[in-house]
Each structure stands twice: as C-alpha cells, then as structure tokens.
C-alpha cells in the first residue's frame, strides 16, 4: 500500500506531495507552487533506506489497526 506524505519545498516552503510507491519507483514530484518550478526525486543510493522506513511504518500501522480492532471487540 502506498503512503501519501509531503515535505516542504526547500525553495519556497510550499508542500510537495508525494506517494511512497512512486517516489521509490524514481518518479519526480513537483512543488505545488506553480511559480516555483522545483521538482525533487529520490536518489538511487538512498532508495533502500526510504523503502525500509516505509515498510516498517506500514507494518506498524497494520499492527496498530489490528490492536485497535481487538479493543473494539
């Protein structure tokens, strides 16, 4: 499952929205400020670190959801 997130643009501070799966696939994401024109993409060298972090986050999220579900029951 893809995780949606955002980071602030280093140039103008407006958020740059991205999806984890596309980011890891090497896609570049543009700043949402139309007059900024900045795009960012993850370098191949750090792809594994980010992928590992997203996997762990997803795992934690599933675990938390499962635990919360047990509380409901």
């Amino acid at each position, binding site marked *: 499952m893809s995780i949606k997130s955002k980071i602030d643009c280093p140039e103008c501070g407006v958020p740059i929205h991205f999806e984890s799966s596309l980011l890891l696939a090497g896609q570049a994401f543009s700043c949402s400020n139309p007059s900024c024109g900045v795009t960012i993409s993850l*370098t191949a060298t750090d792809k594994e670190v980010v992928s590992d972090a997203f996997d762990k986050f997803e795992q934690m999220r599933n675990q938390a959801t499962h635990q919360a579900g047990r509380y409901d029951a």
Partner: protein
Amino acid sequence: MNNNIASQFAGLPMKALIGAPLKAATDANAMIANAQTQFILSTCFEKDSHNHGHLTPVMVTFTLSRSVLEKDGSISKTPYEMEISIPLMTLIPINSLAIEKLKVSFSMEVKSSREIKKQTSQQSKQSRAQTRQPEHAHEFETELHGALAKSGNQSQQQSGSAHANYEVMLEAGQLPLPRGITTILDIFAKNLTPLPPKNED
C-alpha cells in the same frame, strides 16, 4: 408513572457505558503513540558512537531540479540539478496514526402505556339494542403495554403513556503533535537548504 420508568434506568452502569469505549480508544491511541515513538527512534535516528550515543537523524539524499535563466534571459533547456539532504523523519507521516474522532452514541428507550377504552354513548345504544344487555355491561377497560396505534374509530381513548429517552453523545478529538516533535520538524524543514554537488565549481 414517569418516575417509575426513569427508575428503570437507575441500575444501568452509565459510567461504564460511556467510559469504556473512551478508555479503549485512549488506550489504543496511547499504544499507537508508543509504537510511533519507537519507530521514530529506531528507524529515523541512529546512534552516534562518537558522541556518547547521541541520536542523530538519518538523512536521505534527494535530487532537486529547477529551471534557470540563461544569460540571454531565456529559460534553460536543461534544468539545474542539486542534491539536498532531507531527514528521513520528515518523509514519514508520523501524525497520521491516531484516532482522529471518537463518537459514542447510543439511545435507550423504555415505553409503556395503558389504554382505557370506553364506547361512545351512540355505540353503546346500538350495541345495547343488538344484544339487549345492561348498559354497564358494555363498558370495558383495556390495558395495553406498548406503542399505541392510531385508530379511526370514535371510541374515547384514555391513555397513560410513559416515555423515557436517554441519548448520550461523546466526542473526543485528536490532540496536536507534542511541541518537541513539531519543533524538531520545524527545524528540519527550515534547514532544507539546497547545496550544489561537490563536483561543481
């Protein structure tokens, strides 16, 4: 009668009915927050062995691309690329794991009614004529427990109805991120300064 109906609710554990779901949600939230903290510390930071085991943020490198102007004022065909280091922590939506809104809503209803029906004088006369029975024999009482249905007849209805309704609605909102985390995120965000690659002039 209303007092009697209301007294039927006296034995209900209202504290448990309202508090239990809220406590379960709070516990789940606390558990999620704890898991997130452990995740941040273990994944987004690494221990610095040279600095008494202090935690330093894990940085990941991004390529930043932007258009630049040429000397003649036109936009360059090849965008200018730089490398930026971004803390891994800022990429993860850490505040998305929380119970945003909790709504506990339930209603209880106890309804009891007693109906006394008396035939109208005209109906009584007709009935008396048909059956030739004494007048008092055609007056009768009915006692019902439950909801009353509307009827089109002209019979006189005397009803006693007791109705108690309890509706409890509880809302719990999400607290904002702790000041410490927002400060760290602010510092990280303000220091995302693009730096030219080392091999450039």
